[in-house]
């Protein structure tokens, strides 16, 4: 590092480390919330999708399930996006 670099470094405070930290914070928060969900949820989602598909053609990702904690009660939210035109 020569004299010029020394001053340049002083100005450029934000290196790639801050990008790394930001990406990790988002990722870790996301993965932790996934870890704490109920273990039956993925299967519930799969089975519900199968039932819905008996009647309507929907995509694999047209169904979302989430559980939210509000005080002492948990809210199970189920969201199915139906296609614009009827499937069959």
């Amino acid at each position, binding site marked *: *590092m*020569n*004299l010029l*670099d*020394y001053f340049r*470094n002083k100005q*450029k*405070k*934000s*290196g*790639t*480390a*801050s990008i*790394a*930290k930001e*990406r*990790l*914070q988002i*990722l*870790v928060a996301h*993965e*932790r919330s996934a*870890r704490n969900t109920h273990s039956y949820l993925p299967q519930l989602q799969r089975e519900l999708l199968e039932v819905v598909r008996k009647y309507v053609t929907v995509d694999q990702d047209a169904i979302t399930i989430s559980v939210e904690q509000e005080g002492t009660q948990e809210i199970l939210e189920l969201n199915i996006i139906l296609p614009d035109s009827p499937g069959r």
Partner: protein
Amino acid sequence: MARIIVVTSGKGGVGKTTTAAAMAMGLALRGHRTVVIDFDVGLRNLDLIMGCERRVVYDFVNVINGEANLHQALIKDKRCEKLFVLPASQTKDKDSLTKEGVGRVLAELAEGFDYIICDSPAGIEHGATMAMYYADDAIVVTNPEVSSVRDSDRMLGILSSRSRRAELADEPIREFLLLTRYSPTRVAAGEMLSVEDVQEILALDLLGVIPESEAVLNASNSGVPVILNDKSEAGQAYADLVGRYLGEKLPHRFLEVPKKGLLSRLFKG
């Protein structure tokens, strides 16, 4: 009653075996009867780092299968009489580590030792989960780098859900963060996650920071745990770590960029 410590990480190559070897030697040098076990069945390496690779006759799996007793399989360290090594099998399948078998061997070791250090293999497969299952304490070895931090967090989730203590709803495993390969110069330049950054993300008690050091490769080259090199920063940082683990209040060292003279700073890094 022995304390069981797992050295784990998820990601490979971050310094688990180096740490297990250094910590075992450090505890033994302080007079504690210590055994360090290699859980990496099929890819045994602790024996090399400890410098006892030519003295391996029987291994961990032999003991589990009843083909040898502990007395035959344990290798006594030549530098410290309180320290023993239990090597992994190089040929057997990793499924040979059964929960019952591992539990039986650990229970027998607990009668004669103060500390049992389990050197976990990388990954989150069977060998790694067996290494942490019976643990009382976990040292999560992490490099200041995105994939290592992420894998460590994943490992924290497994520690809190798939260990014996979790299954019995017992007091949870005590988890500690150990940052290795830390480069204060690169942190100062904003190129590397700082101790504070990693701590903020993982929210763990910091047990130690080991600076990036040539001494680590030199130590593994010669089969001498780096903690025995008390001239090196890495060796001293591991000695501090052992003291801290035993409850001593020691400040973290080697976190700042080494001070340089004015001339060298002006002309050459």
